[in-house]
């Protein structure tokens, strides 16, 4: 296999680009649907949890997991918790928006272009921001929900893993498009240089 193939690949060939567009069109549409569904589902889950949760049971389960009695909590605490959680949604929505725009770029046959590369990088950065805010939020949420119980700070900080395997997986999902964004950007630059020479 040739390692020098990018050269030729990147030279703009409209017919081939159209053929490629036809071949990846269904994946792009599916990806857009999945992005919208995912983001909408996250929002709906947050809102439904807020309105439909049995706060007493929620706190009882939470207290049991912490090994602490959390009775005597106020509804305001739970509302602040859900409101804060809802504030994380824009980070998920940003990821979905970037995925939507990237798919749109591909559907317009702008595949090896700088804008496709930029949208890929944005997916990755938005994803990393989302993972980081979620990690921080989980700790903050612990403090909000146990504010009335005067649980020692060390107990709260050591109560569970601050970072979990799904966080690592989400970070991996974010690093992946960042790496590919670099590849596509270089590809686009080579294509532009080549077009200039020709």
């Amino acid at each position, binding site marked *: *296999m*040739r*390692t*020098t*193939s*990018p*050269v*030729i*690949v*990147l*030279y703009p*060939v409209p017919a*081939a680009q159209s*053929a*490629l567009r036809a*071949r*990846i069109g269904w*994946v*792009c549409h*599916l*990806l857009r649907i*999945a*992005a919208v*569904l*995912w983001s909408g*589902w*996250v929002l709906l*889950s947050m809102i439904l949890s807020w309105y439909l949760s049995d706060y007493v049971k929620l706190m*009882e*389960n939470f207290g*049991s*997991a912490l090994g602490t009695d959390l009775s005597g909590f106020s509804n305001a605490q739970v509302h602040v918790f859900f409101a804060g959680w809802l504030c994380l949604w824009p980070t998920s929505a940003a990821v979905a928006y970037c*995925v939507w725009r990237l798919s749109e770029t*591909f559907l317009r046959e702008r*595949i*090896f272009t700088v804008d496709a590369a930029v949208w890929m990088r944005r997916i990755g950065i938005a994803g990393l921001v989302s993972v980081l805010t979620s990690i921080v939020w989980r700790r903050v949420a612990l403090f909000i929900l146990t504010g009335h119980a005067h649980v020692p700070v060390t107990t709260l900080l050591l109560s569970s893993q601050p970072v979990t*395997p*799904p966080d*690592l*997986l*989400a*970070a*991996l*999902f974010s*690093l*992946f*498009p*960042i*790496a*590919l964004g*670099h*590849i596509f950007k*270089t*590809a686009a*630059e*080579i294509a532009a*240089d*080549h077009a200039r*020479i*020709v």
Partner: protein
Amino acid sequence: MSTISPAGTLKPILSPQAALRARIGWLCHLIRIAAVGWPAWNLGLLIWNWHWRDLAKITETLGRALNADLQGLSYAQLDSAFALALGLVAFQAAVSYCIWRLFGTFLQGRIFTVDAAIWMRRIGIAGLVAVLASVVARRVILFILTSHAHLPPSTVLSFGQPVVPFDLLQVMFCLFVIGLAQIFKTAAEMADDHAGIV
């Protein structure tokens, strides 16, 4: 200059290829580490939880969540559930292996090549299989852990969401990779065709 001149095309391209390799090298290593870390972490957690399993606490927590009396849960049931979860780690390891190989291919400077495209498609397919297996396994584990209590299947099936937003996020990532695999494959084929003409 002719567009198919080997001298005119290949010479200036080798340099960006090397620059790209240098630019994404650290990212490739990071992604490989994350790819290995994710199933290893899951495996470590699984072994830890299995080793320190507390039958009484699991019975109480699960019983409270299901609103059912689960007294009589046996270690054999717990072990079966852990064994099934262990099987899921094998699917995760398969995804990780494909990611490791893909970024190994990139580190060798083989970027727009058919083998990179094949490894990408394998990541996507292995990922989709892993998500599906995980969705099914979560329900099966619930049936295993409640089998002694003779709960109505509808109670077990309606407990929690069978599919969660994180599953959809994983599906979205898999579709993204499958789409990119098609792009890389077409790019590599175009390169080979062009090389044939040259």
